[in-house]
């Protein structure tokens, strides 16, 4: 039994309040910060991943655990030196212009956040200009676009063109997804990656940025 077993348990349960309190008391007791991260939080998320893959945990529970971990991270982040601990990558995400459907986009955002990405969610009906401006502003590594309607898919191409015109196309990777979107469409509009569902989106994003 690890010294962080109650922290681990709280993260697995997605109990934010208890997990944050446990993290704080570990810090107060002088525990090593790296240990809190490795043996407490990451160990918990490993178990969550295992339980998810065997069907014992469902997506909402996994997302809750990930959010719980994020909240705990806020307490310990400050104690790491610059560069020791950084977000996996910065993602600007949104549903494209004239499309108001967002549950799929939200799932991707939540899953990516849970996996350690820093997310800027622009919401729905996001114009190519807004995508581009925000990407420049935050120094995005990835621009992720969602569309549910085949009629709004062309906005994905326009957004990529806007990124090009702004001169940042080579600095960001573009990911797209949504029910009518296909691998073929992605290569046709020269997006860097396409993912069929939220879980695959996380894997694809890691692959794009060379993160394991």
């Amino acid at each position, binding site marked *: 039994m690890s010294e962080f077993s109650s922290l681990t348990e709280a993260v697995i349960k*997605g109990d934010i309040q208890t997990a944050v309190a446990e993290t704080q008391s570990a810090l107060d007791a002088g525990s090593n910060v790296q240990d809190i991260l490795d043996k407490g939080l990451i160990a918990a998320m490993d178990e969550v991943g295992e339980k998810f893959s065997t069907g014992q945990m469902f997506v*909402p529970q996994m997302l809750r655990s990930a*959010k719980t971990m994020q909240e705990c991270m806020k307490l310990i982040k400050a104690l790491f030196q610059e560069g020791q601990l950084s977000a996996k990558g910065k993602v600007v995400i949104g549903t494209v212009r004239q499309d108001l459907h967002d549950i799929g986009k939200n799932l991707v955002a939540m899953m990516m956040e849970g996996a350690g990405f820093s997310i800027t969610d622009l919401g729905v009906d996001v114009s190519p200009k807004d995508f581009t401006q925000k990407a420049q502003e935050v120094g995005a590594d990835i621009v992720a676009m969602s569309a549910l309607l085949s009629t709004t898919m062309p906005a994905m191409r326009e957004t990529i063109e806007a990124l090009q015109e702004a001169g940042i196309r080579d600095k960001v990777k573009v990911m797209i997804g949504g029910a009518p979107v296909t691998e073929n469409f992605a290569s046709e509009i020269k997006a860097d990656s396409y993912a069929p569902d939220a879980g695959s989106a996380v894997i694809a994003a890691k692959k794009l940025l060379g993160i394991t």
Partner: protein
Amino acid sequence: MPMRLPPYRSLSPEDVRKIDQTSRRILERVGIRILEQNYLDILKAAGAIIDQGDQKVRFEAAWLDEVLARAPSQFVLYSRDGKNDVHLGEEMVHFANGGRVFRILDMGTGGYRLTMLRDVAHTATLVNQLENISLYIIACQAHDLKPQYYHLNDFYHALNFTSKHVMGGCDDAEGVKQMWELAQLIAGGEEELREKPFVSVISNPISPLTIDANTLKILNICGTSGIPVTCAPAPISGATAPATLAGTLCQMHAEALAGVAITQVCAPGAKVLYGAVPSTMDMRHMEYTMGSVEMAIMNGAAVQLAKLYDFPIYASGGVTEAKRPDIQSGCEKTFSNLMVAMNGADLIHLAAGMLDSGNSISYEQYVIDNEIIGMINRILSGISVNESTLGFDVIEKVGPGGNYVMEDHTIEHMKEEFFYPDLGVRCNFDIWEERGRPSMLSRANDLVDEILDDGREGLLDTDLILEIKKKFSGIQNL
């Protein structure tokens, strides 16, 4: 699965009454042919009317009521470990596989072959694992056995691979005796077994309106020994019963009541299930059809007829003419299992594994039917409406434009609120392609392999197996 409400009825109360009255008229005026002098004598002594010349027994209404009143309205088909006891007469719907087929669609070869003893063990293993099948019925004829050892071996291997209740068709009283002695040894004594019988027997009259000597002996030995039994008529509309559904039901109800009555004459209070296996003929070419929609409606109606007398019913559903697990088998099975379940049958047999008009089985069909039954159970349990499920608080919290994915309310309810299929393919198109385009059948095949290719050991204790083999030399290894 407990029913919230009986949401469907095949017959109006008035029509139930008309059919029942006609059945009683059949029993009083036409009678049942009894092919064994001894039982004609027994029934005569008990007060039934005997027509010696044509070996018929007739039941006068008041006498019939008095005899039928002896039958229990509730009893339990026990499992060996107490985890899957089947409570009859408590407004619960249970499903069982079907029995005594002779062919199997073997996905190992893709073709049909005759069934063997190992198929009994394998189907028992499947039923033991499949959560929506409440008890095991001896599934098939073991063609690698001598007929005199069928029942002994069937029950031995079934009991070794499932702890659920085991029901089986028996050809004769000798088979019942062997099976009952075997079960006593496993139970640890006759008293223990009588107290909680974990085996039971299926027998059938011959439609129209005939009961043969073997069936009479089986009903007698089961009744007097305390073995739960059913005498289930299988009239075929258009062939061995009138070509009207109402007429078939009148005859079937008369036959079923006669089965209950005769068992109660032999052993008052005997645990007997009202039996029903009505089906139809396709009159175009006289093809026997068990998967017809009329079969579904009639079995639903049979539940109403049994419940008029408060008898637990052994009804039928889930049969098909299809020769493979396919579109036809899927829709025919679903229609009848759902319809009979919605009428509130205590036990629906044939509900899993069957193909080819009840002549064949397939392992894959067992697991597919388990999933169909899971969906039916979800329908039966209905929509739960209470303060928490109405969800005002969470709707207020999320408000317009948000989502419910990570809410406590979602996590609290998501597991019991929805049916989660094991076989139904729900992944999106790309994932489906990535996974090699799975189908319900391919996934069923994978699941069967997983359940059966596990080097699964038998459940009976090694010392007990030695004792059983010493006592019953007819038992064969797989």
